[in-house]
């Protein structure tokens, strides 16, 4: 079993590592121990600013700091970053295309026991629809570190979608390279393509193994950049495999799945099935049990793959 690390942990570690860049300022809204920006604070307290429980203000403050030429990371839970402060992100940060990175942790239902009020399943939707915004959803700790570095190197708004739950480390730190806006083929196949993001990536890999046992050859693609979406890798998957299943820990409405069908429907229509939260709120429970109850499992991805294959003409 691969080692498990939460992407929020990797985020905090990456901020502490790359924080040596004196141009970086980190803001948090009284959640630094949870979002792990505290790791940065421990090393660079002089460039850490706690904005208190006032997320709307924090986002506009981040924008104001960015106008002075700084690279600003603003962190809180995804529900507050992309929910409560959504309009501040739009008008203060994205409209003037300011250099603010939103490190949104505790995305999805794997938040667990805190329940629906804190389980953000609409953030990809809210963020990807804002012009000038980039949406990144890393699959593991290695990819998170690389994404933080890429976000620092990019001049403009970025939404980093991070999780609370420990997830298997699937990439090799020494060989992994992060390509902005590029999907990553993790394994090749010919019958169907499984396109996943975030913690669903390792489950898509498991699903491919399950399908293999049944003689079905599945390609697995990791989409870390949901916006801008990698059209080419999706169109190629359409041509090569003729069926797609998307998998995300997000509402099936306007998430990764719809970004994929935006491409397939316009460029190469083929059957697409979606695995995600079926347009309902989460609830309290242990994260692993919630993922199972909401159908965010390897078995469900494999089942949907068979359905998608059956729909091929």
């Amino acid at each position: 079993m691969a080692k498990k690390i939460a992407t929020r942990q990797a985020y905090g570690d990456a901020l502490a590592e790359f924080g040596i860049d004196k141009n970086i300022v980190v803001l948090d809204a009284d959640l630094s121990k949870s979002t792990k920006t505290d790791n940065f604070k421990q090393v660079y307290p002089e460039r850490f600013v706690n904005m208190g429980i006032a997320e709307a203000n924090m986002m506009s403050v981040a924008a104001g700091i960015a106008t002075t030429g700084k690279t600003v990371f603003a962190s809180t839970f995804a529900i507050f970053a992309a929910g409560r402060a959504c309009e501040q992100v739009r008008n203060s940060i994205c409209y003037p295309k300011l250099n603010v990175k939103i490190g949104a942790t505790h995305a999805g239902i794997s938040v667990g026991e805190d329940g629906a009020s804190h389980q953000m399943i609409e953030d990809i939707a809210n963020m990807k629809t804002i012009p000038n915004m980039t949406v990144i959803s890393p699959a593991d700790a290695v990819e998170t570190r690389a994404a933080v570095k890429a976000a620092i190197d990019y001049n403009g708004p970025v939404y980093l979608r991070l999780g609370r739950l420990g997830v298997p480390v699937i990439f090799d730190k020494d060989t992994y390279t992060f390509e902005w806006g590029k999907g990553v083929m993790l394994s090749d196949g010919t019958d169907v393509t499984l396109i996943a993001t975030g913690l669903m990536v390792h489950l898509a890999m498991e699903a491919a193994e399950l399908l293999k046992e049944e003689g079905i050859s599945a390609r697995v693609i990791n989409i870390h950049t949901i916006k801008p979406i990698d059209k080419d890798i999706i169109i190629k998957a359409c041509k090569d495999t003729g069926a797609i299943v998307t998998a995300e820990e997000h509402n099936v409405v306007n998430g990764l799945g719809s970004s994929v069908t935006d491409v397939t429907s316009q460029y190469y229509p083929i059957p697409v099935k979606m695995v995600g939260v079926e347009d309902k709120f989460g609830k309290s429970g242990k994260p692993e049990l919630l993922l199972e109850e909401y159908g965010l499992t390897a078995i469900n991805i494999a089942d949907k793959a068979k359905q998608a294959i059956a729909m091929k003409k």
Partner: protein
Amino acid sequence: MDKKTLLKLQITATKIRKNIVEQVFSANSGHPGGSLSSAEVFTALYFNEMNIDPTNPKKSDRDRFVLSKGHCAPGLYAALAERGYFPVSDLKGFRDINSYLQGHPSMKDVPGVDMSTGSLGQGISAAVGMAISGKLYNEDYRVYSLLGDGELEEGQVWEAMMSAAHYKLDNLMAFVDNNGLQIDGKISDVMNPDNIESKFKAFNWNVIVLEDGNDMAAVIETFEQAKACKGKPTMVILHTIKGKGVSYMEDDYGWHGKAPNQEERDLAIKELDEKLVELEGAQHG
């Protein structure tokens, strides 16, 4: 301040008022009332106080201004044009599809605009961010912001107040254009923030109240008072008259966001021209 300088600034404020009327008339939309009530503070900032360079609008050590009540863009644009950031003749393009002068201030489009605003409550927070950055990096620039009194109904304003005081941002100075009116009527009828002086004080700001916020000399004096106060941000409550300078617009909330017709425009320009003649006469007298 000497009389000559004061007259010069009053003349500039009057020209700004004329250009506010012309912009809103050309666009056949926009917000004259709150722009006119703020002409003195715009003039004081851009023609007397701020360390700025119209030939280098982004110079890093400049003082910053954030128009938190972004709908008063005509006032800001008139000041920027008069100050030389762009030609005064461009103002007639305000809100036109072929112009860079957006309906609300856009920092990516308009030279001299330090922050994009328009959604109320967000500008003052951005100003707080600029001031925080100045403190973090030991920069000497000062940050200014102008709010509307109706804008104080936005909760975010008070988050900004809290954070500015918490971080002792004495490099931040804000103004409230307290003209008492908002779109739907008197703020005392629509939603009264009530006793804002004590509220700002309770949030630990240094508060200055000007009974006549359209008194140029009095506005000018507040800057030194603000600089003298260490460890606190300063808020200046400007009791102003909405629509100031245009007789039929004064103290009438109907002119919050309405354009004058040709006849009304002509009357406004006539009144402001008369004011200019009077001030210029005094200058040469």
